[in-house]
């Protein structure tokens, strides 16, 4: 059973967690399902008393998605239906960037290995520190540094 204070913290984290789901799945409907499953899993199993709610939830979310990826082999499905992500665009570019440019970065992000994409999203979009990302993804700090750098490097190559 999740305690009330942790439930409150999880509520505060839901939008950021949804972004993480979108980053992992590349599909709005799957992101909704993944978020739902993550919340259900956290409610069902609870978490250690000393656990940081956001970090724990990200970790649960990622593990569920990896389970799902393997089970459904969605990676191949999405490769064949990459255009489906267009439905996620809310219409119009953001922050003065060209829509085409945003689509290119979207496609480049989707082309990254999942472990690099997750690390970069958490650092560049969510503003998490490397130490926090290491905890969320359950990897050593040095691996975070390497994955974030490799992600930026790959994106630079793709966007040249």
């Amino acid at each position, binding site marked *: *059973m999740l305690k009330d204070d942790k*439930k409150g913290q999880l*509520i505060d984290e*839901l939008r950021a967690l*949804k*972004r993480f789901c*979108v980053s992992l799945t590349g599909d*709005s409907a799957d992101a909704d399902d993944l*978020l*739902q*499953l993550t*919340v*259900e*899993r956290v*409610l069902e*199993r609870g*978490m*250690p*008393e*000393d*656990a*940081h709610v956001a*970090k*724990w939830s990200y970790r649960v979310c990622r*593990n569920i998605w*990896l*389970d*799902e990826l*393997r089970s*459904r082999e969605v990676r*191949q499905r999405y490769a064949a239906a990459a255009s489906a992500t267009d439905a996620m665009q*809310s219409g*119009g570019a*953001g*922050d*003065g*960037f060209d829509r085409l*440019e*945003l689509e290119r970065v979207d496609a480049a*992000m989707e082309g990254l*290995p*999942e*472990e690099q994409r997750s690390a970069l999203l958490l650092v*560049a*979009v969510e503003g998490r*520190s*490397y130490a926090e990302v290491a*905890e969320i993804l*359950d*990897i*050593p700090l040095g691996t975070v*540094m390497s994955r*974030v*750098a490799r992600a*930026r*490097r*790959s*994106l*630079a190559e793709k*966007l040249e």
Partner: protein
Amino acid sequence: MADIHTLDIDGLRRDELLSRFLDGDLSAGEQADLEEKLANDADLRARLESFKHQDDLIKASFRAKSIDVSPGLFSRLQKDGTQTARSYWRGLAAGIGLAASVIVAITVGVLGLPADLGSENGLEIDTSLAQALSQTPSRAEGWDVLDDERDFRAVLTFPAASGNWCREFMVARSENHWRGVACRHDGSWVTQVMAREVFLEESGGYRAASAADVDQVSRFIDAEAIDVALSAGQEAAIIDANWR
């Protein structure tokens, strides 16, 4: 074109330094050194600017997407209840054609390391790992270092349907990460399931499934746990009692 990920080591080091600079991860000394180099190297400055621009694009891309959270989910959290969670997950598992009971039967039947996870990968329940399982409290963050420099973390402890205590744990060595569950059996720790945690190859391809996959760990716990994970205090008491 050469594979930059394997051949351009200097470039990778440079990019890692720039990345850490962007993310505020450098020490004061490292930052001062890099700032000096940036002042004298136009190519390095251009590389940094391209990384910054990419980051801005990524942020803008996510802001342009609809990131709505279902109001029902907020309500779900504000209320209490775990009554639907298990059936929801089971329904999904059934829907994707993976009967959890079959997987668990295969996995539990091993009662030891899966055949493809021999001692060469460092995951055998050797003395140091058994000692760590017996004595290390579960934690949500950080790693303990075993004698042979493997990183170890006890994740949680739960009672299994068999009546034994089980622990989910993580072991990491370099880029290799494993997750597993071990349970007490006749006074010793016995691996029930073990799985590699990294699935995707550098190229973005999909690594073939092995005999023991990480989804089996989750499903093993789903199937075997008869209660939620122990609290820190409960777990400390069990450790003090030497798992009796």
